[in-house]
């Protein structure tokens, strides 16, 4: 068995720290505050850039997302780990992605951003992380009881290249300045690190996360489920790295009120992330991990990513996404319907397993 440094404790801590440093630097260089890398927010910006929603402050084809998937593709090809696969309840994963995004946009951030917000002194993130732990604990209970979306199967190489190909295609639209792309003039979508920095940062993070199997959801799940702290070391070092960098760069500001792109409705910060964490745990990976798996040829993860992009469109079109002013008009409805959906999937895919 060939040894992978990044699968060791030292390796995951190294990877987590480097990803955290990158996130803080991206904020310093222009990305939205306490966002750095927010997979959900940036996929939402991509949905906006493609015109799928009308929230004109969050529209931009974020090169970070493209870089992460392509970085994972390149590393997995180099290491012989690119393996096209799919067919594990793919259509269910699409809608888990939809609702994971709806929950994330009620909180205003994915699990990655929850830790980045914490490291920036935004105490609202504590509610989000508690919700995340709750959602993952519920998911873990079902997993322990036999929940499974079923096996995947080998697919053709062409299938494995589809999602990276889609990312490269929208990247081409961006660099050739396709006139029909939407681009925010104001708001978070207009705040961006220099293009070349963004894409390189994405590639680095994608590579590191591919080698280390970095997963924010998994870090909590593995503690709950098998008392394994391996991934947690990665997420902890990630958070600490962001915190230290924020202190150095003067980006740390503690408190609940007036935090950038955040609201203070505790119950919805909690419940939004409960939904999101639950859905990510049922799908087997946090939003970053789903990008990495897509790059490795996992087409089910790819469809989950498409579901997240679609979910972002619904979030904004149906007024479910929060804003600094608080939850959207239908954010509560989205959260409740999402929880009903995820519980239904969790129950049915557990009962099914038992009857086999």
């Amino acid at each position, binding site marked *: *068995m060939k040894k*992978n440094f990044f699968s060791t404790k030292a390796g995951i801590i190294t990877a987590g720290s480097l990803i955290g440093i990158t996130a803080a630097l991206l904020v310093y260089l222009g990305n939205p505050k306490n966002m750095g890398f927010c997979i959900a927010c940036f996929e939402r910006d991509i949905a906006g850039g493609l015109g799928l929603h009308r929230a004109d402050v969050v529209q931009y084809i974020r090169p970070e997302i493209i870089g992460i998937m392509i970085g994972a593709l390149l590393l997995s090809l180099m290491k012989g780990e690119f393996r096209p696969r799919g067919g594990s309840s793919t259509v269910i994963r699409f809608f888990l992605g939809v609702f994971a995004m709806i929950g994330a946009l009620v909180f205003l951030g994915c699990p990655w951003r929850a830790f980045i917000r914490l490291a920036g002194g935004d105490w609202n993130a504590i509610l989000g992380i508690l919700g995340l732990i709750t959602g993952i604990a519920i998911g873990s209970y079902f*997993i*322990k009881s036999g929940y499974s979306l079923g096996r995947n199967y080998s697919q053709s190489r062409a299938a494995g290249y589809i999602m990276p190909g889609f990312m490269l295609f929208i990247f081409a639209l961006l660099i050739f300045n396709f006139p029909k792309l939407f681009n925010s003039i104001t708001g978070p979508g207009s705040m961006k690190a220099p293009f070349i920095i963004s894409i390189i940062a994405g590639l680095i993070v994608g590579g590191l996360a591919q080698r280390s199997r970095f997963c924010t959801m998994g870090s909590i799940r593995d503690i709950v489920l*098998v008392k*394994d702290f391996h991934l947690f070391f990665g997420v902890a070092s990630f958070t600490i790295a962001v915190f230290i960098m924020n202190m150095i760069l003067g980006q740390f500001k503690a408190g609940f009120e007036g935090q950038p792109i955040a609201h203070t409705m505790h119950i919805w910060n909690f419940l939004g992330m409960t939904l999101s964490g639950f859905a990510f745990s049922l799908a*087997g990976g946090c939003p970053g991990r789903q990008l990495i798996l897509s790059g490795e040829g996992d087409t089910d993860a790819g469809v989950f990513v498409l579901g997240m992009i679609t979910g972002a469109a619904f979030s904004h079109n149906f007024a479910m996404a929060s804003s600094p002013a608080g939850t959207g008009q239908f954010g509560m409805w989205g959260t409740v319907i999402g929880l009903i959906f995820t519980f239904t999937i969790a129950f049915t895919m557990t009962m099914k397993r038992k009857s086999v």
Partner: protein
Amino acid sequence: MTTIDTRGLSCPQPVILVTRELAAGKGSFEVLTDSECSLENIARLLESRNIMFETEQKDDHTIIKAKKV
């Protein structure tokens, strides 16, 4: 000898199946996996329990052979 086929299963199911096997008394067992990530996770689990194992690379999967003590 028990064979645990974890091929095509998402994280964390392979690790959970192996954990169950470890709880189920002594004997040899083998685990089939087609994911590098699962292979590393299982290897880390076995190492943490001080269980000796060896791996064998097949065409499209890896076999982990272990003996509980």
